[in-house]
């Protein structure tokens, strides 16, 4: 296998696959859309061509079957039906597996014979023996197919003939009435190597690879004969196919009119400005040449290397600024140079950061399929709305969030969305709405997954958590509404007593939380019983650089990510209270947060308010007591993988003064305080000394 070709082929193939899936789902609701049909066809054709170069014979064969089916649909020989959509989607899954095998350096195994047979039967216009989706009506088989053949015309010239033929496909020939060889032979007989559009075949003999697309075939015929081609019949066009009933299966309803199976609405089409950041141009697609000229596919590892080097540059910049700042005598030149270096490094950092940005479209592309499959399985009606596909986020987030997004949607469908009957009884529309949105917020991107389902009953969640041993009854009694709802993110928690394909194993939501944590993000859940649930995930725009706030705890310096900080406060002891066994701080009339005494946690010695300097750092979930806040800096996180999996640090960084500084994990610290607040031996209680 040629690894260089493989390196080029795989990413492009995956993009094509994603697009084909997206288009296939669009086709389900808009079966007559010729543009979408052509797009799916082109995707299979291009996949097949590339696979031919790699000599991946089974992939070539598989895509050939699908291409054949799409060709018939594109030419309106057949019309789109529900089983066809199912078969195409399943076929795409098989291609995905095959691509994975290629990525592992193996030649793909043959696709499943049963599905292959179904696709071939569908392409031949016959009804598969076992319909793929019993909920959808099976398509009616056409009576005949078209057959193209070459023979002498009446005046002795060689000619191509289009004939009606009974639909009795054989496994070998039934899917393609004119093979590549036949076509080549026809052209050779007519013109030899002078045929318009002639290209010498590749050295490798890919019999199954069809190097000439149907467009090219049409073009050849047009150039040869125009509308005088032997066998040319204007009525072959679908608009006037009265004499050629093979063009479609009459009475076969389009999927859009099928109401028996709940199907999701297609994703909202991207706005005109929401073009993704120039993926590779699809071969043979007119108008993409210009794009191909200005885009360059770069190995992600190289990009990561550049990013790491920029990180080092940022650290050096910090050290330079710090060194110049500590010079006893002010030197205008040095200050100016430091400022210019600062600006230039910022520019480089911002440019390289943008290189890693990818549109959320990549993340959302799989979701319509997930919703479609799960809603069918659960017999629920759901409309999926996708917003903000053009919002860009770090590649690491896009890559890591694919699984969690699927979990969230499946959970929403399984637990949140009610059955159509239950919705009607509750005075809601039969069809539920799931909304996935990406929103750009300053240096963060928020991804929301919301539904208008039944919401989460906090008491039910507490009871389930106690039943499953996730928390004790005593802990459950002390939880606030919000804390109770957040139990769904605990490992091992599930409200389902029975394990199903969709959910019930108690894994998934904790994975979501863990993934968000690893991506330095923030997870939030808002629910209203009977009205719905919204899960929000906030991620930093870039993973490369982390702005931190340095703080001093007695003699030691720590860092806290700026993204988790709300404000810095002067702690007043009159605002410190004890509530439900916890020490809390009253920030204002409405906000009361738990106090995290870093002295008690990290030094095992509480900070003494009034006896030593203490400042407060208010985060989203608690107030951190520290000795002094020093200042902020852009830092680069260095992993500290020698510590236990569960610790209070996100990593380490090197400060401008060249010291290694631990970066605190605010959420982990607050969670620890909340979990241990009932413990009478806890030391997280600030001492109030004499003022």
């Amino acid at each position, binding site marked *: 296998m040629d690894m260089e070709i493989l390196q080029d082929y795989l990413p492009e193939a995956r993009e094509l696959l994603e697009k084909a899936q997206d288009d296939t789902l669009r086709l389900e609701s808009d079966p007559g859309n010729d543009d979408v049909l052509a797009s799916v066809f082109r995707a299979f054709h291009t996949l097949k061509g590339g696979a031919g170069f790699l000599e991946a014979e089974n992939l070539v064969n598989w895509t050939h079957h699908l291409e054949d089916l799409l060709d018939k649909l594109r030419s309106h020989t057949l019309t789109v039906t529900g089983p066809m959509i199912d078969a195409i989607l399943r076929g795409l899954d098989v291609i995905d597996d095959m691509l994975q095998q290629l990525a592992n350096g193996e030649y793909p195994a043959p696709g499943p014979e049963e599905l292959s047979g179904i696709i071939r039967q569908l392409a031949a216009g016959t009804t598969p023996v076992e319909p793929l989706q019993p909920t959808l009506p099976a398509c009616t088989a056409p009576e005949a197919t078209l057959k193209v053949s070459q023979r002498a015309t009446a005046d002795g010239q060689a000619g191509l003939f289009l004939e009606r033929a009974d639909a009795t496909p054989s496994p070998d020939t039934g899917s393609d009435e004119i093979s590549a060889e036949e076509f080549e032979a026809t052209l050779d007989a007519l013109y030899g190597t002078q045929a318009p559009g002639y290209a010498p075949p590749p050295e490798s003999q890919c019999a199954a690879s069809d190097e000439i697309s149907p467009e090219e075939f049409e073009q050849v015929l047009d150039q040869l004969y125009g509308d005088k081609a032997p066998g040319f019949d204007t009525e072959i066009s679908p608009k006037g196919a009265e004499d050629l009933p093979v063009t479609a299966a009459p009475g076969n309803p389009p999927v859009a009119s099928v109401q028996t199976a709940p199907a999701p609405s297609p994703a909202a089409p991207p706005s005109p400005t929401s073009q993704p950041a120039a993926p590779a141009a699809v071969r043979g697609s007119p108008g993409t040449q210009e794009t191909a000229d200005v885009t360059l596919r770069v190995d992600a590892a190289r990009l990561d290397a550049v990013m790491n080097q920029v990180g080092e540059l940022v650290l050096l910049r910090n050290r330079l600024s710090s060194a110049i700042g500590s010079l006893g005598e002010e030197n205008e030149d040095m200050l100016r140079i430091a400022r210019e270096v600062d600006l230039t490094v910022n520019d480089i950092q*911002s440019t390289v950061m943008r290189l890693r940005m990818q549109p959320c479209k990549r993340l959302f592309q799989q979701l319509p399929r997930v919703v479609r499959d799960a809603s069918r399985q659960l017999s629920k009606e759901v409309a999926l709305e996708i917003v903000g596909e053009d919002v860009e986020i770090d590649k690491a987030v896009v890559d890591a969030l694919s699984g969690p997004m699927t979990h969230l949607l499946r959970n929403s469908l399984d637990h949140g969305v009610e059955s159509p009957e239950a919705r009607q009884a509750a005075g809601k529309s039969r069809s539920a709405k799931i909304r996935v949105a990406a929103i750009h917020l*300053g*240096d*963060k991107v928020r991804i929301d997954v919301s539904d208008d389902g039944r919401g989460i009953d906090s008491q039910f969640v507490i009871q389930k958590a106690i039943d499953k041993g996730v928390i004790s009854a005593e802990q459950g009694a002390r939880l606030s509404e919000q804390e109770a709802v957040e139990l769904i993110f605990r490992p091992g928690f599930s409200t389902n007593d029975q394990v199903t394909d969709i959910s019930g194993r108690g894994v998934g939501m904790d994975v979501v939380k863990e993934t968000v944590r690893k991506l330095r993000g923030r997870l939030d859940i808002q629910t209203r019983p009977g009205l719905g649930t919204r899960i929000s995930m906030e991620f930093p*725009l870039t993973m490369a650089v982390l*702005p931190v*706030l340095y703080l001093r705890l007695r003699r030691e310096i720590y860092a806290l990510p*700026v*993204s988790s*900080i709300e*404000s*810095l*406060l*002067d702690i007043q002891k009159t605002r410190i209270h004890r509530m439900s066994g916890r020490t809390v701080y009253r920030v204002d009339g409405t906000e009361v947060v738990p106090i995290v005494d870093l002295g008690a946690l990290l030094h095992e010695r509480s900070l003494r308010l009034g006896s030593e300097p203490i*400042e407060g750092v208010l985060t989203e979930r608690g107030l951190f007591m520290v000795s002094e*806040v020093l*200042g*902020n800096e852009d830092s680069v996180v260095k992993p500290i993988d020698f510590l236990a999996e569960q610790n209070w640090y996100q990593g380490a960084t090197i400060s401008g003064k060249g010291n290694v500084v631990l970066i605190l994990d605010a959420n982990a610290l607050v969670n620890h305080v909340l979990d241990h607040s009932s413990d009478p031996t806890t030391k997280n209680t600030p001492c109030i000394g004499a003022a």
Partner: protein
Amino acid sequence: MNIQHIMGVVDASFAARQSIEKALREIDRRALNAMVLVKRHGNALAGYGVVAQAFRERAATLKDSAAHLQESIAPLIEAYMRILQHQRFSDSFEQMLAHNADHEKHCPGLRSTQKKWQIIIVEEEAEAKAVLERLLEMVQLLQEGIEEQEYVVTNGRIEAALAESTGAPLMRVSREMGEAVRTVALAIRSYRHQLESLEHESSTHL
């Protein structure tokens, strides 16, 4: 000039120092708050970031100046205490001379010593005046720093107005910055009044 007056200045100096330190810490915290806010909003608030950075840098300079101010207080108090002490010596000699005169006694050595003390006191008063003037110059510098800080706050308000569409509470942050600066300004003004009254009393030799 009496001991009560000097103690009044010492108290005022202590109160001013505490007030200035607290207000400067508050300014620093406000500046850091602004910088955190800016960082959390990314490039959208880059303009305000420059203002916040300038605000913090000036706050650090003010803190430095305030520390120097404190360094000059001690010599001033010391000088005035010495003047008071020597004034008392001089007064004692004066009383002795008066007592001798009452008994028609003449003691030229005593008068000579008393005159020496008077000269010393005049010299010390000149020295104290110089220290006081230096201190007033420092206060003047501090006040100029505060004015610059007020200018930065005004710039911050303009930037906040320009960045209003981002939804960041910059106007509130700017207002709080302004309040912190005003607190320092008031503390310094009050301190200056104290020093000026001392200067006035010193010059009139009350």
